């Protein structure tokens, strides 16, 4: 069932239909948890919708939403007086050995990501999943371009250490993120 016509702006609706999944995946990588990511993206879309009529959405709505997601995530984190410990969801195993193996690898990578300091994780996701230039990542995270380089370097090193011999297997079994 789709939202009723006229409930939300048509352009906004089209944007969410075409780009919602992409931002949900980015948020999943940032939070390490699909449900937290859904909350984060839904809250961020609501914020975006409230200013939708005032922004130039023909230019770069992705950039607006990305910035809102990053800010909202940081704001939620800071407002917490004790830190919630997200538990990565383990997806239902799919049929077939290959599918099960890929699920397991995905879970391992997600756990390895969850163990990274938040800033390192954010840099890896924004720099390499979102494919943003260093300067833009630095602007989003409120740090210097040099800090982005440092976080990227240390983040990758930590991922490799976490995954050990499984890292190359994971890399060889995937073709990378779908761009777009």
């Amino acid at each position, binding site marked *: *069932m789709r939202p009723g016509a006229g409930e939300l702006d048509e352009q906004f*609706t089209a944007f969410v*239909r075409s780009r919602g999944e992409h931002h949900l995946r980015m948020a999943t990588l940032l939070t390490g948890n699909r449900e937290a990511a859904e909350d984060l993206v839904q809250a961020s879309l*609501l914020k975006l919708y409230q200013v939708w009529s005032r922004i130039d959405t023909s230019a770069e709505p992705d950039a607006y939403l990305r910035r*809102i997601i990053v800010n909202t995530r*940081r704001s939620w984190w800071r407002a917490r007086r004790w830190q919630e410990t997200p*538990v990565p969801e383990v997806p239902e195993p*799919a049929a077939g050995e290959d599918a099960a193996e890929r699920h397991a690898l995905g879970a391992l990578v997600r756990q390895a*990501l969850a163990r990274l300091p938040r800033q390192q994780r954010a840099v890896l996701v924004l*720099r390499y999943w979102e494919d943003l230039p260093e300067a833009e990542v630095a602007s989003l995270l409120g740090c210097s371009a040099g800090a982005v380089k440092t976080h990227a370097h240390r983040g990758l090193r930590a991922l490799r250490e976490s995954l050990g011999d499984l890292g190359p297997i994971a890399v060889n079994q995937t073709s990378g993120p779908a761009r777009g």
Partner: protein
Amino acid sequence: MEDVHADEASEVRRLLATVFEPVPADSAAAGDGLLRAVCRRHTRRRRTRALVSAGAVAAAGAAAAVLLSVTVAGVPPALAAVTSALSRASAESFRMTLKVTQHNTAPGDSFMRSPLYITGKLDLKRNLGEETLSNGWRTLIVGGEAYTKLPPAQEKAYETGGKPWTEESLSDPSNAPPYGSAGGQLAWDLNSDRPFNPQALLALLNSGAQVRDEGPVSGPGWTGTRYRFTLPHPDGTGRLVNSITCTVDVDGQGHVRSMAQTTAFVAGGKLGARAGTIYTLDFTFSDFGLRFSVTPPPASQIDPGEGLAVQF
């Protein structure tokens, strides 16, 4: 520092992609799901704003509202007494102590060092507050802003740029997840700068809570009556909350003297717990009408996160 080499960048992209393997992207389905959720939140937000406005009116004209709620024919006395006391609390000042206890219904993850103790003073009419936490945090509330001083060891984790204080806007409702319901708001508030939220409790009462009179109760220097209500699966909390139960002690002058608020979260819910998690907040209130002032920290010591602000 050398940038990550292009091959390494490719390696990171592929590693990140494994998180979603072998689930294919279904943009249309995901987009429709998000749109439905945004529609629901948009509608709830408008409804909640109306409720909050009603609560604010009640708080602003507390005396009149209290009299009205007590004397309206047909309102059960227990509900009227609790409504009156919470309306009053939302417009006055007092000292507060709070003990937060976490309990898991089965072996599972702990989110906090339990119990956590909070002491402080609040003036809900003037939006002022000072709170000290047993985990080393200190919070000042001045108007629509909350300033939190973190223990030095946590400054790095919270990315404060070496500043000892952080600043969060309390007046911007978008700083909290838009659960869009009083129950969801309370579930969020229990771990926020303002764990005592009489207006959300009032909205919860208005959503159909049955209040029971549990008889006489007394504390140091006061006597009163204990009331209790439970909301199973509060509206709008989805898979987050199983129930919210409150025990409220109201003294002979109509002040809330103590309150125990128990929130039972769903196992595997949005807190990510494998076990069901129960938080109990034990409040005590005293020194009603207390006058105090709060000075914000120097601007040079605050990390406002300006570099992250969204400008529209």
